[in-house]
């Protein structure tokens, strides 16, 4: 699929995210919409995975450390055929394989449980260490949130990633600048996040438009230089739905019927029942 088609695909996946949250009546639209293109850059362009064999031993690994953005991951996994798209409409319901936060035991294609912030990046680091010990050449990718960087565990994980020279490990930051209680800088400022990861021993790249699949792919293809890689993706929280964009209040709230219909209209996607 070429990049132009992928941007078209992003519109459909965005609509899927909104629809599943509308039907679930809860969940996290803001961060799902901001990080969608980052995950698409990975799954449609960079990662070696096989939807028919989700546990393929030599696959690249992906850990959604900011697990609350899983609607975006679920939309992609369904599109790739890991499970039927219809399952999306039962997100967060009892008995559905799509849990409120990623659960590797119930969902094909989900590599680890995540959602308790800080833990995903640390688990991913352990996977990268294991790959080195096992002499496997697969890559490990993780997406963290900016609010998540307030967790001390993120920095413990960063320190050990550099110590163990994990040049098979890429940390991507969904830098949408907002968290539940407001702007990062109001809640607990991150400071110069690029310089911080650089000081922790990462090769760092910045993507000015993290909602451009092409720009994210370009950064993902840049060299590690013998170190773990950090990619700061500047994104827009709630990207693609006008009333959600850059509004902290849409971090963890589902759209009502009117909001759902408006989002579908804006995206130009027909409601398919």
């Amino acid at each position, binding site marked *: 699929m070429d990049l132009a088609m992928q941007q078209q695909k992003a519109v459909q996946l965005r609509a899927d995210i909104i629809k599943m949250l509308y039907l679930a009546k809860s969940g996290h639209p803001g961060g799902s919409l901001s990080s969608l293109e980052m995950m698409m850059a990975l799954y449609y362009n960079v990662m070696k995975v096989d939807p028919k064999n989700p546990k393929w031993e030599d696959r690249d690994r992906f850990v959604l450390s900011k697990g609350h953005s899983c609607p975006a991951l679920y939309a992609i996994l369904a599109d790739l055929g890991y499970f039927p798209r219809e399952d999306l409409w039962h997100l967060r319901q009892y008995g559905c394989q799509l849990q409120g936060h990623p659960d590797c035991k119930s969902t094909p294609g989900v*590599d680890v*449980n995540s959602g308790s912030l800080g833990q995903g990046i*640390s688990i991913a680091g*352990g*996977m990268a260490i294991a790959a080195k010990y*096992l002499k496997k050449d697969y890559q490990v990718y993780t997406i963290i949130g900016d609010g998540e960087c307030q967790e001390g*565990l993120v920095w*413990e994980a960063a*320190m050990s990633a550099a110590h163990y020279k994990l040049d098979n490990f890429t940390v991507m930051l969904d830098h949408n600048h907002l968290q539940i209680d407001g702007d990062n800088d109001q809640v607990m400022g991150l400071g110069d996040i690029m310089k911080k990861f650089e000081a922790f021993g990462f090769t760092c790249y910045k993507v000015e438009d993290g909602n451009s699949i092409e720009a994210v792919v370009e950064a993902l293809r840049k060299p590690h230089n013998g170190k773990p890689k950090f990619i700061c993706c500047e994104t827009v929280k709630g990207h693609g739905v006008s009333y959600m964009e850059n509004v902290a209040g849409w971090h963890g709230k589902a759209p009502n019927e009117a909001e759902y219909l408006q989002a579908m209209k804006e995206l130009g996607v027909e409601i398919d029942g």
Partner: protein
Amino acid sequence: MAEKQASRVAYGEELLAQGRINEKIVVCDADLSQSTMTCKFAKEFPDRFFNFGIAEANMVCAAAGMAHSGLIPFVSTFAIFGSARAYEQIRNSVAYTGIPVKFVLTHAGLSVGEDGGSHQTIEDIALFRTLPNMTIFVPADAIETKKMVRAAIDIDGPVYIRASRPVMPCVTEEDTPFDPYKAAVLREGKDIAIFTCGLIIDESLKAAERLAQEGIDACVVNFHTIKPFDNETAVEIANRCGAVITAEEHSVIGGLGSATAEALAGHSSAKFARVGIQDKFGSSGTPARLFHEYGIDADGIVAACKKLLAE
């Protein structure tokens, strides 16, 4: 009888022995390998030993990542930091998924001694017990520690082995069968049963000797596995003896005493009392002095047994 040895030393030896025959075993420590005795494994297998520095939360999650990659990580540090400090990581990254991370945490309980209350974990068993999928072993001695390490490798899930700092006398033999799911009677008796584990087994056996001199026939049972708990044996012995004391180097809240109470409730009318740390923190002192002051030595157990029988 075999030589006295600390459970942590036995762990270090068995870990190395198992490492030699199982390449899936990797070891994580948090700057305490000289104390947890993972240093032996580290020396022979430097490429399979990962020091995470003084960062227990990251160590636990990284070990989870290793387990997700098909390895069998052993995680060691002092029990206070490996349990309470990293608790939510153990819960969400390990127990929730049920992956085979093996926690062998050392220097548990009051027997850390002089380091004092900040380093004496009296709640670790309680914390681990509340986690679904978790297995909990408290070794009786060095011999049983080695059997537990082997059993832990065979269990397809997370395991906690509570190891101690001091040298322990041997109360089992090499050929004593170790069934992880069955408590072991160390001494038969008909008047009262002492359910115990770990370092307090020796105190309980001494207590039983002294009770015998006073005509009280005490049974001593090694409840080496706190979870899953052998409810059946607990109820059967309680109903046979009519009186049960639990004795442990742990808070009476959440440990062996609680597990026994939960097992007996509704299934036994035996008299029951718990010897353990009575909802307070530890303090500095020699292990022997602390065991005495906190009432978990032979003196304390004898007194508790007599009091219960007199009720």
